[in-house]
């Protein structure tokens, strides 16, 4: 009854859209102001409720869109008005933005709830329970900023959100800023993320400047309307705008060459990795390109570059993922790889496929991160428990004392101890690898189908990436969950409480069924997005491609089983000093080392960019600034000369002339005052005389003039 009314109610729900930003803002304000006096539960649930209410609003918007699919722009305030520049803060309500809102708020709410349990333990393991409140404030701030980003009706407001989520990302990566390598590792990771993003943002800003210069506006609708005209007059401008935006995208969505920050971003608490660095923020770049479809469609050459950047990233990151031991690092590289898929898709003009993968990826990658978090928590619990129990502490060796709960080599056999986590993890992994009928299969298959049609090079790269994806996920599953426990904490790990597992189950359900959004026969999602993006071609399901990719996936899993299911277990029997840490190492040799060291990209950047930059800075600072400018020019020329000059000035000029004059002037004013006051003799006749003299002077002047 109520629902049908709502469905027919049409656009009036659109005016609720400011609430998607307002609710999290209220949440964060309340938590900031009163969090100190609230219990942990209250803080967490309040923040979750704020995110949840945003989700409810997003659902209402979605319902309205069913009957009113063209959407609307809901203006709020004039933000900046300078001359011709007039920027409103308006909300773009259409199927594309509401899709993003649903993902952000929906996944965001689940992760908030999960965090209530996770952070409760995390703040205690890290030894600072006071930061619990801060975490949820930042999380709500992130939701608000992300909502601003996806709901903006112009590029500048989008940029506000873009920077805002970047800030939240920085704050949350460095959440345990006093932890990590040498006590500043996490802070360094946050800084790295921020700087890499700044480089991308610089591109975005330049794109915005050119856009304003050419179009005279930032508003989506106006820009897209003018775009064809501008493209015919000024093709270079569109190329420049789209390319510079791509720079922004490579920063925010961790593409080559700016992807290096994302693995380090795993320094943040696991819910942060799930929400910001897997499900939502990093997909902002994909959203940006999709939103700017009208611009990218005009420049096929740029689209080609985008597609290749995406495909190359997908393959490159997938290779690195194979060589990682940190459970979250594997997922991080997997995320980069999957983002590469999405970017490649939108680069080819397959916006639906890209957005579709964005949605399903949000489900299964959030799921994977959160269950990984559950595993980490379980191991930490066990480790903690043992450390404080003298009986259990006895059998612990050196390795166990400096125990890394994220290292997969310390895991194994966990499927018996953490059943729920295992099953949801398995579902997430299957969804990611793309085994039908789970979500990942459908979305990845759609991308591959489009790639096969438009860009064969990208197609082959992505196919290889898909193979590697299945391999590294198989490797991870086998290392974490199967075999025998390889450490004491792994033996004693326990399942996490329901507050953690319930969101996992919900996400698992979504990851399993998310593919239904855009099944090949109905193209529901395609038609849904068509209202925002204009006519879209729907990729026809190709049995050939689906078969090929499925075959590759299964082959990869089989290979993983051979190596990690059998060989790895066999290796455990060897004595520790002769035992390679990974069965691939003997096979691949130095190549595995390269994978493990991420192809030395970080080192490469250090060598070719950062070190020269630092040397240059040193040169500028030490030689130019200090020795030349400071020591010679400043100290010798200026200070020396100045000293000499001031001596002359102070002794001869100042004391001799100015001081004398100033003192004299001040004195003379005072003396004049003292002297002139005597004119007031008190005698009326003198006053009259002065009066008369005045008259004589004035009249004399007037007559003799």
């Amino acid at each position, binding site marked *: 009854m109520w629902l049908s009314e709502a469905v027919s109610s049409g656009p009036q729900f659109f005016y609720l859209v400011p609430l998607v930003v307002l609710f999290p803002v209220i949440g964060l304000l309340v938590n900031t102001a009163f969090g100190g006096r609230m219990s942990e539960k209250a803080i967490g649930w309040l923040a979750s409720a704020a995110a949840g209410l945003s989700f409810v609003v997003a659902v209402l918007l979605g319902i309205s869109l069913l009957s009113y699919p063209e959407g609307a722009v809901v203006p709020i305030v004039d933000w900046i008005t300078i001359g011709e520049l007039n920027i409103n803060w308006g909300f773009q309500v259409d199927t594309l933005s509401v899709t993003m809102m649903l993902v952000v708020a929906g996944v965001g709410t689940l992760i908030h709830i999960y965090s209530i349990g996770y952070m409760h333990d995390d703040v205690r393991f890290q030894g600072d329970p006071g930061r619990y409140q801060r975490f949820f404030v930042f999380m709500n701030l992130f939701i608000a900023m992300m909502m601003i980003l996806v709901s903006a009706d112009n590029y500048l407001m989008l940029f506000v959100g873009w920077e805002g989520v970047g800030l939240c990302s920085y704050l949350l990566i460095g959440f345990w800023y006093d932890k990590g390598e040498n006590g500043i590792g996490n802070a360094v990771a946050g800084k790295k993320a921020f700087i890499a993003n700044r480089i991308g943002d610089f591109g975005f800003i330049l794109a915005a400047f050119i856009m304003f210069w050419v179009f005279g506006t930032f508003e989506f609708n106006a820009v897209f309307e003018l775009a064809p005209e501008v493209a015919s007059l000024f093709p270079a401008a569109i190329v420049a705008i789209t390319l510079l935006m791509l720079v922004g995208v490579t920063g925010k969505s961790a593409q080559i060459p700016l992807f290096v920050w994302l693995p380090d971003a795993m320094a943040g608490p696991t819910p942060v990795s799930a929400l910001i660095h897997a499900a939502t923020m990093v997909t902002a770049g994909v959203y940006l390109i999709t939103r700017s479809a009208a611009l990218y469609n005009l420049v096929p050459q740029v689209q080609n570059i985008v597609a290749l950047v995406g495909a190359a990233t997908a393959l490159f990151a997938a290779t690195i993922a194979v060589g990682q031991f940190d459970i979250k690092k594997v997922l991080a590289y997997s995320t980069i790889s999957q983002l590469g898929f999405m970017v490649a898709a939108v680069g080819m003009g397959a916006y639906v496929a890209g957005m579709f993968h964005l949605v399903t990826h949000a489900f299964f990658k959030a799921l994977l991160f959160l269950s990984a978090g559950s595993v980490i928590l379980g191991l930490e619990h066990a480790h903690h428990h043992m450390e404080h129990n003298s009986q259990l502490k006895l059998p612990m060796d050196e390795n166990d004392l400096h125990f890394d709960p994220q290292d997969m080599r310390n895991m194994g056999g966990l499927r018996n101890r953490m059943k729920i986590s295992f099953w949801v993890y398995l579902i997430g992994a299957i969804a990611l690898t793309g085994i039908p009928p789970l979500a990942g299969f459908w979305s990845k298959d759609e991308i591959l189908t489009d790639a096969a049609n438009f860009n064969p090079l990208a197609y082959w790269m992505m196919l290889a990436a898909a193979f590697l994806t299945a391999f590294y996920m198989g490797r991870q599953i086998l290392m974490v969950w199967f075999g025998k426990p390889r450490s004491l904490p792994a033996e004693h790990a326990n399942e996490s409480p329901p507050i953690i597992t319930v969101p996992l189950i919900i996400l698992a359900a979504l990851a399993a069924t998310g593919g239904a959004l855009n099944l090949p026969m109905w193209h529901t999602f395609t038609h849904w997005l068509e209202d925002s993006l204009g006519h879209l071609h729907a990729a026809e399901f190709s049995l050939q491609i689906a078969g090929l990719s499925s075959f590759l996936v299964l082959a990869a899993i089989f290979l993983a089983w051979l190596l990690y299911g059998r060989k790895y277990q066999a290796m455990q029997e060897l004595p520790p000093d002769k035992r390679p840490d990974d069965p691939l190492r003997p096979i691949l040799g130095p190549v595995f080392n390269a994978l493990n060291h991420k192809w030395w990209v970080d080192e490469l950047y250090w060598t070719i960019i950062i070190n020269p930059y630092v040397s240059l800075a040193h040169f500028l600072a030490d030689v130019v600034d200090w020795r030349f400018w400071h020591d010679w020019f400043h100290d010798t020329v200026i200070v020396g000369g100045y000293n000499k000059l001031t001596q002359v000035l102070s002794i001869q000029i100042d004391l001799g002339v100015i001081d004398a004059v100033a003192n004299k002037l001040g004195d003379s004013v005072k003396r004049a005052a003292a002297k002139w006051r*005597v004119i007031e003799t*008190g*005698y009326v006749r003198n006053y009259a005389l002065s009066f008369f003299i005045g008259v004589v002077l004035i009249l004399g002047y007037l007559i003799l003039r």
Partner: protein
Amino acid sequence: MIPISYYLIFAAALFCIGLFGVLARRNAIAILMGIELMLNAVNVNLISFWRYATPEKINGQVFAVIVFAVAAAEVAVGLAIFISVYRRRGTVSADEIDLLKW
């Protein structure tokens, strides 16, 4: 008919005499008399201007009458002040009234 300049010169001379009185006399009452002379010089001016320039309008005459009236009011206030000063100090010599100065 006597030209107007005669009257004007006469009035100017009268004004200057009054002015001299103000500047030169010490007694406050004498100063006041000087001021009265100045005002009367103005009246002479006004009447002669009226007679020679605008005999058809009466504003010069009216002005002169008003000056009389106001001068009388002023003298009344002035004499009252003088008397009050005289009572206190026993003198109205302008040169001895110099409490306030500088």
